[in-house]
């Protein structure tokens, strides 16, 4: 039973970066903007968080810096696509390529630096309870943050007026504009929120999950997060479920090695990518559902003058 609890613990830990990144992207996409730069924003978030944590000795300050870095990078994307009307697909790709380059460049001298990570909470007594103690009270603080974030986004999108406006902007920017909502400004906010979340996802990777900086350490998680938003048909709770599912798949790699299964590591490393492709194909197969759930103006530029 305790190993099962341990497995849940590890799955949540592995799924959390995907939760952050995919929830952020979901909000961005709900406003009608497709930002393919998640991978880049995550990498920059990861490296900035790590550098700040290494220099200040404060991992929490690192997390804050990572969030700020992700948001700052997304501002570049917002500027190019929302103000300068560039193609969102191309700009997102550009942001990812830029993030890969930038993070490798600034992180070079930090490759073998060691930092003090954020440790899991341990509530005296409670965390030591059998099974339940581990399931409820032994996670990393950021895992709880991700759950709070999920609840907040679910509430914001579907139970507040501001959330309704955001969704309206994503469905029909022209109508929202005609009623008098500042479409571009709302989209700026949504893009920057997505960037902040991606930065947080990166910070989680470099400060909690694998406290170190390695070039390209996100290993495609930004792209998997993008796919997750599609799997989830733009519903937050399905993002959460999907993220943990993929967290579990990532774990298979280590678990199999632990169990002494004789299989080259590369096969297991392929799993998350192959699983993404398979699930994406299965979900997308029903084109009508995707069309019904995707924000109607997703990826289309909007200029107030028409």
């Amino acid at each position: 039973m305790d190993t099962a609890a341990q497995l849940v613990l590890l799955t949540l830990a592995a799924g959390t970066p995907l939760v952050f990144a995919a929830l952020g992207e979901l909000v961005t996409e709900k406003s009608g903007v497709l930002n393919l730069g998640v991978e880049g924003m995550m990498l920059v978030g990861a490296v900035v968080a790590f550098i700040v944590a290494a220099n200040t000795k404060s991992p929490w300050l690192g997390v804050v810096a990572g969030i700020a870095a992700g948001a700052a990078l997304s501002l570049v994307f917002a500027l190019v696509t929302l103000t300068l009307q560039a193609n969102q697909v191309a700009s997102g790709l550009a942001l990812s390529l830029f993030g890969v380059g930038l993070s490798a460049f600034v992180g070079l001298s930090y490759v073998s630096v060691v930092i003090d990570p954020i440790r899991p909470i341990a509530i005296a007594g409670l965390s030591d309870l059998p099974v339940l103690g581990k399931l409820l009270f032994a996670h990393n603080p950021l895992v709880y943050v991700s759950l709070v974030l999920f609840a907040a986004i679910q509430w914001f999108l579907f139970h507040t007026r501001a959330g309704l406006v955001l969704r309206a902007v994503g469905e029909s920017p022209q109508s929202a504009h005609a009623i008098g909502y500042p479409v571009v400004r709302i989209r700026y906010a949504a893009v920057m929120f997505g960037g902040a979340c991606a930065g947080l996802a990166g910070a989680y990777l470099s400060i909690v999950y694998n406290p170190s900086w390695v070039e390209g350490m996100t290993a495609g998680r930004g792209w998997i997060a993008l796919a997750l938003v599609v799997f989830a048909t733009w519903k937050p709770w399905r993002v959460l479920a999907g993220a943990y599912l993929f967290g579990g798949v990532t774990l298979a790699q280590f678990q199999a090695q632990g169990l002494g299964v004789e299989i080259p590591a590369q096969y297991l490393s392929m799993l998350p990518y192959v699983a993404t492709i398979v699930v994406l194909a299965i979900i997308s197969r029903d084109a009508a559902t995707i069309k019904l759930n995707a924000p109607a103006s997703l990826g289309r530029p909007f200029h107030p003058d028409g």
Partner: protein
Amino acid sequence: MRILLEARREPSRLARWLSPIVATLAVLLIGFVLFTAMGKDPWQAMYTFFIDPIDERYKAAELLLKASPIMLCAIGLAVGYRANVWNIGAEGQLIMGAICGGGIALAFQDIETRWVLPLMLLAGMAGGMLWAAIPALLRTRFNANEILVSLMLVYVASLVLSLLVHGAWRDPEGFNFPQSKMFAEHALLPNLVPDTRLNVGFLIALAAVAAGWLFMRKSLPGFQMRVAGLAPAAANYAGISANRTVWMGMLIGGGCAGLAGIGEVAGPVGQLLPVISPGYGFAAIIVAFVGRLHPLGIFFASLLMSLLYLGGEAAQMKLALPSSVTGLFQGTLLLFLLAADVFIHYRLRIVRAPAAAARPA
């Protein structure tokens, strides 16, 4: 006073071609500032980065050598991009091409015939096409997003290569290093210019660029693909199959990338290694855009991209600057390009009076 973006009646051709130049100049400026900030003599650093790599015959040949795979990938991608087929997995298709073509080279290690090389090139092309066929199939049959699928397959391809060079194809006499045997002489691309490393791969790349131009400008399928990209609804009405467009865009992109891959391993690399490309497939995305999806533009943009790679290496060796500055410049170049592209469809209008005097916003 306010600055407004005003839509042009027609897209500006001038802005279309000026924007890559502006973006390049902006990258130079960023480089200048960056090098200064890092405490280097900026003029010397700029010289090392952009002039030093091409000031000799041998080095200039290196420029063309490195530009070849980028050019090949980019021309293939551009065909797809014109039709809004977003293949961003050229890097994976390149690796698959290297694997398939390299497999032939290893199989014919001891059998010397002049058919080995053509067979390798064909296998390389087929490998790239096969890898690109997966996103094409999933897109046309299952409506799966080709951007995500093609990108995921990059990781899978590099793991397949890693599997092979660590396992079945590892050189038994290679001191346990993860690498294949060196290819035999007859399985390597012939040299083009004596005393340099430039090989006929460059001619293949040039031929691909020319073929790309013919295809896009002079052939019916090329025309149909351009229509599909510019006006999907019109294309649909005219009976141009959207699925066929996806298939063509993907297969051409994959075939070219596969050719680039085998060109690398049968050229400068000479064997299969865990990593055979420093991201040529991704650099090619930037090149396709900077070259305006036009063959001639792609030719020049590939040279620029190749220079960025060589400049990064030179800066590392001579100035102890990190070579990753190359990736930074690449990303910056594309971002500046996309930003500068605003002037294709818009012009600036400065409004002096209160904003109300402008067009109703």
